[in-house]
């Protein structure tokens, strides 16, 4: 019988310093891993434990995956000290992944905050693989400072893709920054997607998800059109250990991206 808790071996091939607090780890598992954009992996730091991460790379590439990680806790602190050539473990993929089939012939508004752009990049790259299927991809991204903007070197390339536009903002003015200033919600004020024929996908800190959701509802989106990458502590990844529960759902099995209509009445849903 398959042991759900045993990781497979993987090696860190390269580490890319993205921002002062984020690194992308290029990881080669001992066997290719097929995943859907939005599905997540449990990454083992030997002896330290596991933490859940959604790959930031395209699902079209299976022999290696990129995972972009914010330094923010016991496991990620150690990860940030690791070097190319170090070994890690992987379990997964887990979760449902983004409902790309639903997005066909629709406009997709992607709203990211901080490291939240990491899982969204996997979605963006997956959509680029077959952009003819979608009417439009509109990306709104915000970070605290210009240095904290993830994947900035890709922005030009993304903007040039067919039916794609990208707007970026930083929270407060910074020397040398000539772009937009304000929280990512401010980019939603003049959003011009065809609302009845669109979906929104958002990922970021809980407080951002809360205000993005409120703003989206205010400007006329329905809860059913909103997908949120929810944040909860996870351990088993397979709906048994109990902790990632949001109402009757386990994020590890039913998410981590949840349709807002399903969870809107859950107490403290955004915390």
């Amino acid at each position, binding site marked *: *019988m*398959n*042991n*759900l*808790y*045993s*990781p497979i*071996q993987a090696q860190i091939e390269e580490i890319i310093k993205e921002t002062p607090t984020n690194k992308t780890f290029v990881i080669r598992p001992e066997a290719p891993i097929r995943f859907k954009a939005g599905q997540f992996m449990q990454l*083992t730091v*030997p*002896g*330290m*434990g*596991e*933490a859940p991460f959604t790959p930031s790379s395209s699902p079209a590439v299976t022999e290696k995956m990129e995972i972009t990680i914010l330094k*923010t*806790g*016991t*496991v*990620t602190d150690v990860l940030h000290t690791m070097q190319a050539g170090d*070994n890690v*473990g992987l379990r997964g993929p887990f979760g449902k992944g983004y409902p790309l089939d639903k997005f066909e012939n629709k406009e997709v508004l992607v709203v990211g905050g901080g490291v939240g752009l990491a899982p969204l990049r996997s979605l963006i790259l997956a959509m680029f693989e077959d952009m003819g299927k979608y009417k439009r991809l509109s990306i709104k991204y915000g970070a605290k400072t210009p240095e904290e903007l993830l994947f900035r070197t890709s922005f030009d390339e993304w903007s040039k893709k067919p039916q794609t536009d990208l707007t970026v903002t930083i929270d407060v003015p910074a020397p040398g920054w000539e772009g937009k200033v304000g929280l990512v919600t401010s980019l939603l004020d003049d959003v011009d997607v065809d609302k009845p024929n669109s979906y929104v996908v958002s990922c970021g*800190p*809980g407080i951002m998800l809360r205000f993005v959701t409120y703003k989206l509802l205010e400007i006329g989106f329905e809860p059913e059109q909103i997908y949120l990458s929810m*944040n*909860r*502590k996870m*351990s*088993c990844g*397979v*709906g*048994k*250990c*109990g*902790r990632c*529960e*949001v*109402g*009757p759902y386990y994020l590890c*099995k039913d998410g981590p991206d949840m349709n807002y209509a399903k969870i809107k009445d859950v*107490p*403290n*849903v955004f*915390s």
Partner: protein
Amino acid sequence: MNTRFISEGNFVRLLDHLAERGRVFVAEPVEDTGKIAFRARQEGEGFDYTGFRATQSLKPFLFVAREKVAEYPCAAGSETVPAAEHVTVVGAAACDLAALKTLDAVFISEDFTDCFYAERRANTLIISMECTDPRDSCFCTLIGNKPYPEAGYDLNLAKAGAGYVVEVGSEKGESLIGEQASLFKDASKETLAARDKAREEAARRVEDINRGVEVSRSRQEILKHAPEDEEWHSHVQTCVECAACLFCCPTCHCFLLYDQKGAENFERLKVWDACVYAGYSRMAGGGTPRAFLVERFRHRYAHKFDQIVERHGIEGCSGCGRCIEACPGNIDMRKVFKALDSAALTEKVAR
């Protein structure tokens, strides 16, 4: 399945036979405590029929409190595999059997099965017994269960003079009786009638114990309409976050995968965890959906009586009353539901 009779002497022989397959655990009274514990049986020992559930449930036999579930890195062929020891447990109560429905639904599912639980489950033979001595904490009848096993056992015992009426509840039980046919004889009509009378009596006693804490609708309904704060705050006052209620619960199944350095390589343990602990749902960076005790307290009820019901169609409670018995703060789930039910009704009227 058929009903048989076994004398006390022959039951000892049956247990000796089962001991050849693996360890046998028997529920027996712990001197001077009024409590009952599962103890590893020594050869030749019989069964001291207690008629009340043990302090411990069946959970630790199947879902171990702390267990190694993986070693890494590991060479092909040396993977951590579940222990396949045969275990017999004698003296489980109906509430223990009912609780296994929840654990089975969680750990053995179409998409993901926990091989450690599944392997133990398959290798455990359960000989249950009837409750003849329900105590104040018992509330199986409120949950819709009975103080006597109706399903989920391999064999079930009811005390009858100097022996037991034996009910066969599974193929495993059936084949055991077949192998050891000479130890059994037919149960007489009189012993069966006496057993059924004792059953009715026990059920009536549990109902009597719970007179006054019955609720007007399903616990799921009560929770859906429970007032947000005040009522919960009044119940959480004496909770000291010890998690005794969760660890002794036969259905609570939360765990944490915990990694550490082993002798040769790294190992992963699966360790019981409890949702009343502040760290249980705390994320990297410090955020948590349940920062306050009252939220965690409420979550336990919501999980057991709403979310598990949504997911598996059964409540995460068998009415065993262990949580009531274990709580140093005298928190009684029955009274919490009664109060929530009444408060919600009052509120409705006020509106």
